[in-house]
């Protein structure tokens, strides 16, 4: 099993925005985020998936082993949240993946990876 706990920060979310090119202001500008009904800036779903992918790759024995990665973005992640990403073998070529915040809520659901045999 591989596991990693990550404390999300505004700096990390901004760095992901720059590196990914997803500069939607809901990830960068608290005031804008609040104007569209959010509590403030939120993390990109794809940042969460990226972190999940790293833990999955570790459990798989290397990133090249990943053949498929899937998740549902079920919960919002905001700066200060601590999310624990876990990857566990669920078969010879399958991983069960979980991402749970400090309140015990799943922020990614139905997450799984298929691996090259």
């Amino acid at each position: 099993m591989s596991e990693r706990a990550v404390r999300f920060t505004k700096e990390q979310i901004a760095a992901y925005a720059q590196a990914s090119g997803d500069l939607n202001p809901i990830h960068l500008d608290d005031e804008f985020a609040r104007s569209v009904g959010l509590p403030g800036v939120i993390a990109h779903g794809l940042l969460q998936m990226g972190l999940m992918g790293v833990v999955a790759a570790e459990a798989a024995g290397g990133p090249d082993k990943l053949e498929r990665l899937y998740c549902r973005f079920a919960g919002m992640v905001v700066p200060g949240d601590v999310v624990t990403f876990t990857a566990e073998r669920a078969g010879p070529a399958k991983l069960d993946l979980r991402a749970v915040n400090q309140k015990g809520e799943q922020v990614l659901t139905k997450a799984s990876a298929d691996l090259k045999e």
Partner: protein
Amino acid sequence: MSASGGPRNAVGVTGRTYPPVDFLIEADRAAEFARTIGADPSAGVPPTFAAVYSLGVTAPQLFGDADAAVDFARLLHAEQEFTWTRHPKPGETVTSQGRVASDVSRRGIRLVSFETQTKDEAGEPVCRSKALFVIRS
């Protein structure tokens, strides 16, 4: 007929295909991306860099399509799947083409399923991205 008189299940832009987009996978850019997700930047292109070279280059075509009329402020990324035939290397140019697999509106919620096929310079498959976007009205 729905109460408003409008269509119950609008087909939106189902089936619309956008022109292919080339993307050079620069080593520096992939390494910077790796650092932001806590991956080893010397270990090559992280698998989820597909968020950039596949989905990232094609989704803006959908979002910028006046006919598709996607309200960015009401958009949620609900689900994502990446399937790789192989993982690309730094220095490769890949070509991605996006297509609206389905676009269905129901009771004020619009679901857009957007698929992207990414191929290498030889035309061989590299990655397939399937994104589900939810747009609240």
